[in-house]
């Protein structure tokens, strides 16, 4: 903050071979080893999957994927062509988008408004409601299937009547507690002075939301969009339960899982299928990752 304290803070790192310098180099090295180690541990299974997806079936079922990394090399695209040939992949992609985009946009939009109210508006029972909402994070989603499905059927919100709407609704419900929690924490950390200044400047509640809160929260909202998008894109269970597995409505996850025959034949296709389903999440992630990294830091480190 002050100029003086900055000056005091720097020098140790720049003077080589002092005990402080060695300590810093050592702890930095340790940090790198730890980070690389963790990354490797997480990457290895994915790498195995990638290698396996290019192996012929006979190899695939008789030896570990790492054996493919040494000669003789035997790779094939059979698994990928198998997936492409298999069935209505185009329809599944379309369904996945039809499910994921509204089921991301709706809860994030609602959450932004709700989080603003929870963090910067005064109303009766605010903290109580917030606590109750956060408590919902603990409810296991599987426990909600039967009551919600019963209600949907009673209300006529079945896939035959309303298409994906029911699915959008449940994804909204499942996503909101975390979404509101994340955004409210972020909004709350914005400096009070900004809101007071805006109040004196004559900005109303909605103006403050659209012209100050939203632009300053782009990182948090981008992170939330990524989370929600990935969760729904990769969702298998909820989609299967609420809209079923018929090809006209099944998202990519369900269709790909159906590639495996009922007796478990063709299970090698799953490796290629997994990479297929990863394409879109990767695109989303890399296009927003700039904000994602900032968003994660934004809560803990100010600025």
């Amino acid at each position: 903050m002050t100029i003086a304290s900055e000056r005091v803070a720097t020098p140790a790192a720049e003077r080589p071979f002092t005990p402080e310098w060695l300590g810093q180099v050592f702890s930095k090295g340790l940090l790198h080893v730890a980070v690389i180690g963790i990354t490797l541990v997480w990457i290895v299974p994915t790498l195995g999957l990638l290698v396996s997806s290019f192996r012929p079936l006979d190899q695939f079922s008789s030896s570990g994927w790492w054996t493919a990394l040494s000669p003789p090399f035997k790779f094939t695209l059979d698994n990928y062509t198998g997936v492409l040939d298999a069935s209505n992949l185009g329809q599944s992609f379309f369904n996945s988008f039809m499910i994921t985009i509204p089921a991301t946009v709706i809860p994030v939009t609602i959450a932004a408004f709700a989080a603003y109210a929870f963090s910067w508006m005064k109303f009766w029972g605010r903290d109580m409601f917030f606590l109750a909402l956060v408590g919902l994070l603990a409810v296991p989603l599987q426990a909600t299937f039967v009551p919600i499905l019963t209600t949907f059927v009673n209300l006529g919100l079945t896939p035959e009547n309303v298409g994906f709407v029911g699915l959008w609704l449940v994804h909204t419900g499942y996503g909101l507690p975390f979404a509101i929690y994340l955004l409210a924490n972020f909004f709350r950390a914005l400096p009070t002075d900004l809101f007071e200044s805006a109040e004196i400047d004559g900005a109303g509640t909605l103006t403050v939301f659209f012209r100050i809160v939203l632009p300053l929260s782009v990182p948090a909202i981008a992170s939330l969009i990524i989370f929600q998008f990935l969760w729904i894109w990769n969702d298998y269970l909820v989609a299967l339960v609420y809209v079923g597995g018929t090809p006209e409505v099944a998202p990519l996850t369900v269709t790909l899982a159906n590639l495996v025959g009922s007796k478990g034949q063709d299970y090698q296709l799953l490796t290629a299928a997994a990479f297929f389903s990863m394409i879109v999440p990767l695109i989303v992630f890399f296009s927003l990752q700039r904000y994602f990294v900032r968003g994660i830091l934004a809560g803990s480190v100010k600025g």
Partner: protein
Amino acid sequence: MASVTYDHVVKRYTADLTVVKDFNVEIKDKEFMVLVGPSGCGKSTALRMLAGLESISEGQIRIGERVVNDVAAKDRDIAMVFQSYALYPHMSVYDNMAFPLQMQHMKKPDIDKRVKNASRILGLDNFLQRKPRALSGGQRQRVALGRAIVRNPKVFLLDEPLSNLDAKLRGQTRIELQKLHRDLETTFIYVTHDQVEAMTMGDRIAIMNAGILQQVGTPGDIYDHPANLFVAGFIGSPTMNFVPATAQNGSAKAAGFEVKLPKSLPAGKKGTLGFRPEAVTDRVTDEGNALQMKVDVVERLGSDQFLYGQVGGDSVTARVDPRMKVDPGDTVKLGLDTRSLHFFDSETELALL
């Protein structure tokens, strides 16, 4: 342009937490009023009640003739400069200054004229398209001022606007703010914990302590006639010397010396004798007002020389002629200017002379 009146104003957060107590002050039109006091004494709260950011628990605040207790902040025709500047980080300097005008639905060309005018006054012409993070502390501070100026408010409120600047810039900005006040011909209310800022900038100063207004007056008035022990100790640097003393016939007796008082006090009255370091001189004109000081530390500043030492066991600071030759450990004989003596009642701490 308007006067501001605090009329028996109270701020209470909870039943037993009252941070501003029976606050009464009248700030004149176009006056530069400084509200000063130690940190946590309730200055900001007093200002924020005027701004409309805090509710008023009791009493009335008036801007001009209008009671503003129930008027929304935006309709009070005031502008506030925050200690943190509170600039909108995602907006350019131009948009920061235009924002309050856009909120008033002013026409674009008018906004442009006002923003350009303010940026010219403040020397921000070349930075209008920058974001606040690309500005220095001093420039940010000026943007905050600009955002207040464009609104052409009746009253300017400033809450410690200089405390985030380094010492040199603070000195410059102090002068610029005074110039601005003169040019704008508007009422300024300025909150600070720094008595130097208060003394140098204020037309008048209001001193607060623990939520209670202690004294209101011109800097000179307060310096020469502090109303109580707190004000006497708060204003002036180095601080006033305080020595326990007892009043006698026309004089006051301390542990190490006795001085004639300009005014007679009831004999036997116990209290604190106060005198500023500059009231102690190296010229002894009257043997009756002399004191022997054992010097511990000598501080030569070129234009001044400060002696820190003991007089009869009480710590005393003296500001003497820089040419006087003194070394630590010496015992020197010093005179006391009786015209600037203060005597504070030991119970009420009020000034008795």
